[in-house]
């Protein structure tokens, strides 16, 4: 048993007492603050997680406040867009009302005034300035975004910047839209119509018989049509030799870019005329005479071109595929109506069935030769041919201008009736082409140059639009003074046409007009053409379409705004959940378990009191008291 010194006895009791007191006070401090972790030293590991969680929570709270800003801005914008939609709808209703013969000039005046007020409201919306900032001006919030320039055109003066607000860790949403995108990027259907007559066309030169394999095809860069460089031609699949250099392959290569250069290439029938022929009924043996790979074997039925032609057309029972032989005034002619190459071969063994000055069947030389057909290019505008080697396929680099119609026929009185041009044909070219003889004509669309149109209407001179009858067949018989109504276009053909005369009507959309000009045009139409039904129909009809498109554009923007608001709101919920979880996590680390802390406090208090008591007791223990 160790010896205890008196001061030690006191010191021990005192130490115990002080320790108890410190613990008691620590517990008491924690209970009063409710925190388990007061400083990082209390729990370094927990506190580093705590700092991270708090940081994440704060970041997310910042995102929430960003979302508030975004939602505030977007709902502001949404209200203005909604208002804009209402204004456009009103303008549209007024337009429909104005398109009426029974209106008095007073009525029209009041519609005009009303439209002017609407236009004013619309510019006011575009120049909306809540909180002193133009909301549709992009980043130039101190610049009035929509104004008239010196020429009286509506111009956008803002910029195209969309403010991006962060709503999620990697999600940004645009908090504004510019007047440019909402009101100046409207796809309008204001259409420029141009009409022309006549056609430009150029036909390639046919080759003379050339050795098979020596024909040049279109290679990359070899042929440029109206500035468009063509891709290399590919095999036509039917020619027995030089299949990439055939007329079919050439036309296909050209037509592959028709949407770019507008030129249509058509293949003409390939034709080869044998000259200086001697015809017998002697039999042709195998190898004597081969056309497109088919050996002509047998005896001609007569000693003339017709006899040989009959043999050729019947050889093997079917003749030569794609090639027809005929008697052309005593000379043999081969025709490939689809324009494929005609390949002629002889094996050099003397044949006695026939012989020709331009293709020697009796010679000692084996021959393998080919002839290519021709391609005709046509367009209602001038055709320019260029490239490094246009001669490869029989063209000459040049610009081929439109050839005027030979006849005196005219296309006149062109305007839109019935319905305004729809979106379907606002970029279309219509071709009215007279046949040979010019008693009939056909109507084509450039987008489908091989199918003649039907289904349009026509009425005769002296009749009205209401008398128009539908055309069900093509070609259509031509009567001077007939009026055609084609896809909303109205025009009259008159005069005497010559064969192959043509007229073209080209529609070209004018894009990206603004909705303010659209309304201004409507106002002008109402006041200018109010009493001219056809112009009024067209112009007001156009205005209605423009207003519809404006409405659609604003709706797109508005639903876009709505979508962004929804993204923000969804994100807000996600963020809320995250904040809740983070708060829970923080609390788990940082907060005190009050129940256990209080029971701890009670325990420590008991110990403390015991220590106090024992100190007092020890003090009383002294032998000196008993001396």
């Amino acid at each position, binding site marked *: 048993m160790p*010896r205890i010194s008196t001061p030690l006895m006191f*010191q021990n009791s005192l130490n115990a007492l002080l320790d108890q007191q410190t613990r008691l006070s620590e517990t008491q401090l924690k209970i009063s603050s409710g925190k388990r972790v007061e400083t990082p030293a209390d729990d*370094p590991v927990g*506190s580093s997680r705590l700092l991270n969680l708090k940081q994440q929570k704060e970041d997310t709270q910042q995102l929430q406040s960003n979302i508030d800003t975004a939602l505030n801005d977007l709902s502001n914008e949404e209200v203005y867009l909604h208002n804009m939609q209402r204004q456009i709808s009103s303008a549209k209703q007024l337009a429909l009302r104005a398109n009426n013969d029974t209106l008095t000039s007073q009525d029209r005046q009041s519609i005009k005034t009303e439209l002017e007020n609407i236009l004013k409201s619309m510019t006011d919306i575009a120049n909306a300035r809540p909180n002193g900032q133009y909301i549709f001006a992009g980043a130039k919030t101190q610049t009035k975004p929509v104004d008239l320039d010196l020429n009286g055109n509506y111009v956008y003066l803002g*910029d195209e910047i969309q403010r991006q607000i962060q709503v999620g860790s990697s999600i940004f949403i645009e908090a504004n839209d510019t007047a440019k995108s909402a009101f100046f990027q409207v796809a309008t259907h204001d259409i420029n119509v141009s009409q022309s007559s006549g056609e430009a066309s150029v036909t390639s030169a046919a080759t003379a018989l050339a050795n098979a394999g020596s024909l040049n095809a279109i290679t990359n860069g070899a042929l440029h049509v109206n500035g468009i*460089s063509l891709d290399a031609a590919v095999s036509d699949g039917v020619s027995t030799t030089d299949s990439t250099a055939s007329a079919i392959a050439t036309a296909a290569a050209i037509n592959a870019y028709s949407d770019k250069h507008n030129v249509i290439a058509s293949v003409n029938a390939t034709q080869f005329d044998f000259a200086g022929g001697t015809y017998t009924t002697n039999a042709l043996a195998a190898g004597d005479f081969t056309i497109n790979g088919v050996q002509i074997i047998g005896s001609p039925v007569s000693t003339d071109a017709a006899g040989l032609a009959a043999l050729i057309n019947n050889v093997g029972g079917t003749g030569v595929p794609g090639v027809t032989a005929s008697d052309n005034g005593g000379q043999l002619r081969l025709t490939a109506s689809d324009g494929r190459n005609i390949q002629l071969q002889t094996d050099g063994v003397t044949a006695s069935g026939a012989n020709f000055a331009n293709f020697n069947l009796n010679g000692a030389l084996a021959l393998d030769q080919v002839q290519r057909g021709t391609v005709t290019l046509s367009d209602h505008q001038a055709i320019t041919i260029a490239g490094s080697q246009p001669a490869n396929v029989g063209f000459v680099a040049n610009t081929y201008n439109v050839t005027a119609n030979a006849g005196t026929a005219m296309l006149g009185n062109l305007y839109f009736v019935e319905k305004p041009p729809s979106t379907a044909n606002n970029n279309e070219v219509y071709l009215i082409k007279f046949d040979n003889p010019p008693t009939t004509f056909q109507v084509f669309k450039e987008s489908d140059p091989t199918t003649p149109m039907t289904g349009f209407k026509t009425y005769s001179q002296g009749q009205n639009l209401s008398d128009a009858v539908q055309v069900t067949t093509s070609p259509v018989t031509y009567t001077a003074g007939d009026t055609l109504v084609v896809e909303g276009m109205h025009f009259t053909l008159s005069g005497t046409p010559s064969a192959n005369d043509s007229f073209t009507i080209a529609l070209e959309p004018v894009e990206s007009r603004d909705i303010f000009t659209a309304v201004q045009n409507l106002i002008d139409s109402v006041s200018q053409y109010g009493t001219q039904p056809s112009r009024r129909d067209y112009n007001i009809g156009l205005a209605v379409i423009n207003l519809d498109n404006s409405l659609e554009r604003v709706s797109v923007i508005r639903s876009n705004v709505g979508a962004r608001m929804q993204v923000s709101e969804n994100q807000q919920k996600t963020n809320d959940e995250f904040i809740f979880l983070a708060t829970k996590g923080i609390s788990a680390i940082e907060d005190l378990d009050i129940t256990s802390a209080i029971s701890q406090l009670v325990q420590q208090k008991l110990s403390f009191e015991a220590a106090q008591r024992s100190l007092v007791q020890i003090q009383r*223990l002294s032998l000196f008291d008993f001396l």
Partner: protein
Amino acid sequence: MSNLLNLGVSGIKAQQSLLNTVSHNIANASTEGYSRQVTELQPKTPVQIGNVLIGSGVQTAATKRVVDALQIKLHRDNKTNTESLSIQEDFLLRINNLVADAETGLSQAYSSFSQALQAASNNPGTSETRTTLLAESEKMVKRLNTLDERFNLQLRDISDQMRSVTTRINDIANSLAKLNVDIINTANQGQFTNPNDLLDQRDTLLLELSGLIGTTTVEQGDSSINVFIGNGQNLVVGGTAGKIQTQNNPDDPSKLDVIAVTQGSTFTITDVMNGGRLGGLIQARNIIDPTRATLGRVALTMGMTMNAQHKLGVDLSGNLGENYFNDPNSITSQLNRVIPGGFNQGTAIFGVAINEIPRPDPGPYKVFGQASTMVNVGTLSQLNVGELTINGQTIGASLPDPVSTADANASALSFVAAINGSVGLTGVSAKAEINSLYLGSFTTGAFIAGEFQINGQNVITTGVDEATLLTDINALSDVTGVKAIGDGNLNITLVAKDGRNIQLTSNTNTPAATFTHFDTNNGTAFNQVQRAAISITSINPGTKIVIGGGAPSEVGLSAGTTPPDVPSLTDSDYSLSYDGTNYTLTRLSDQTIVGTSTTPLFNVDGFTLMLNNGTALAGDKFTIRPTQSASKEFALQVKSGGKIALASPITVQSDTPNTLTGNNVRRVGIINTSGLPVATNTVLGNAFQTQQKLSPPIQIQFYNDEKGNPTVYKVFDLNTGKQIGPDQTFDPTKDNEVFPISSVVDPTPPGPNPTVVYDPGYRVTIGGAPKAGDKFIVSYNTDGKSDSDNAKEMIKMKDEKLLANGTETILGTYNGLVTTIGSQTQSAQSNKDAAISLERQSEARIQSLSGVNLDEEAAKLIRFQQAFRAAAQVIAAGSTLFDSIISAVRG
């Protein structure tokens, strides 16, 4: 009988001294450091009477302290430990509370600042958000300043305490020396004096000394004690006291050193104090120093990156931003970071500039090479094995490309093929840029065969005007691969789109026709060739491009790493020494030599150390503290909300009938608004050379290619209307980077100059589905009051890992600091608790042996009293005996 008396007297005397000792013990029961004493008795030498030895009484042998010297030593060591840990805990607790507290720490202030920046970014047009941002910035700056000030306060406190502790140690040393003398004297005075109380006094002083500084003691035979400190410096030897003192560290006057002075020589013992309060103070200082450095690092990172980004934006008035915070590289700050050694002989003054801190760039990265000039055929360098390495891979030799007519094994195409042969290994792919050759002005006139050849093809032309020349050159394009472009003003450029070599030949004829940069009529035969530049792109975003090898210039590249490896600042201090030849820079935290050089210029660990003035002499030393003063110097430079550059300096506008809108043309980055050229040799220079203007404003316009697809765009200089660089190809499947533009010809005579890469200092991409005729204008953002593109970049900094070599964010670094201090504090606390309990144990052991137990003394008192009475009875008995004899004699 007299014997009996003597015996009684000796007993009384002995019991008296025992009682004295007990009383002494009782009296000193509460005396600090008192050790109980016991008096030992021994029988006197017996007297021989006849053949009988008879005891002659008792005598006191000695009065001794009941002590255990080993325990006392142990206790002293414990005390040394406790004191050291206590003082550390004290300081740690202070800074722990400072850094973690919401009111004094940085976390909260930084968060508020970030939030204010966000709010300003969300609403850049309102002055309220800007004013708030300014106020929050100021608050954050103040917070950093205050933190540093508080740390400084702790450091001053440490210095003050060091001084007073030193004084006390010297006092104690003097007292101990004096006590040693007294103890020796007392011990020598003889048997009846004892130095017990002096020894207690000495032990008490030694204990106090141990609390102040770690000591070792050696007891001498003459009862004196020698005290040593540090690694064996004398503090007390016999009666002589040594001395310690504090003095400024010669390398860093802001620090105090502890010096031991013994017999005229001095030893620095700052780092060898082995605990005690003084040792604890040094330890605390060693904790606070890196803490301040970390804070400084945070301040510097914020300052450098925020300033850099702020300068890339424009303020409400449309002016480019200035420094947002104070310039960390002001000349004063630079010089403050280097402290010349106290014994320096030379005049050298050094400065430390903090390097630009790169923002994380996910790549992919792109490096442009250099095109060659026109040189004689056969002189272009081909690529040999060993001349070029990319990402550590040796690139094979270049083989002739199939299209170049001259030097085909030294063409851009051949280099690209060689480099792309190792794509799988290098992770980068190469591309031949367009070969552009500016011929200069054309003097009209005809060329006949031989007079002017392009890639071996004769240009035959009447050359009457530009158009004719161009047509005749371009008719050969299919063969030559070269197109000619004019500007309508007879200035001709040749372009090989596929990047093949352009070979120009001219015989000795003297035609009238000639070019400024290719003289066809001077009667000399020319045969020259130009190689295109190549560019190298990393395939995957993260892959860096490291170009090396024996001669990367052979292919027009320069050795280097893209993006450059920039090491981050550390918390360490550095030491620079000069031995007359070499400068040696040492990082003190790990004692690593980070640089040795004969020139006084080092670029290490995120800073650049350079000689500012004067010359160093051998033996000169400098202490470099790159980060220590940063948070003190941290200040807000921007003074008004309107001056905060939240907007981008450029804006992109589309022309109204465009298919594409501004959404398709995006501003994707501002790189450099310094007004200084980004790339070398660029003819147009940086786009931000003039205030509030883009130099030049740019128009991007779309054209149909020869297939009629709108995949060609040209970039025009709107000031001159001239095209910049060759036609560019648009890829509709991705965002196309417009800049930098390579293969830009430099039209300045005398030419022909090599082509250059034009980098205006900003980045724009085009995406979407354009239409021929679509136009975009890139111009200066003069009125973008609600643009917050630059603010967005500033916000990004919060989440970017800008510190510790790209591993830590600003707040992460600070929070790491908080956690580190927290765990240091916690471990100091528990270590201190353990040390205290050890100290209490050793004290208890000492007390249990040497402490006075009053009950024990009371019992002894009773016992000795009884013995005393008995001895008195002996005398009484003696006296009775004597009386009996007297009376018997009287009789």
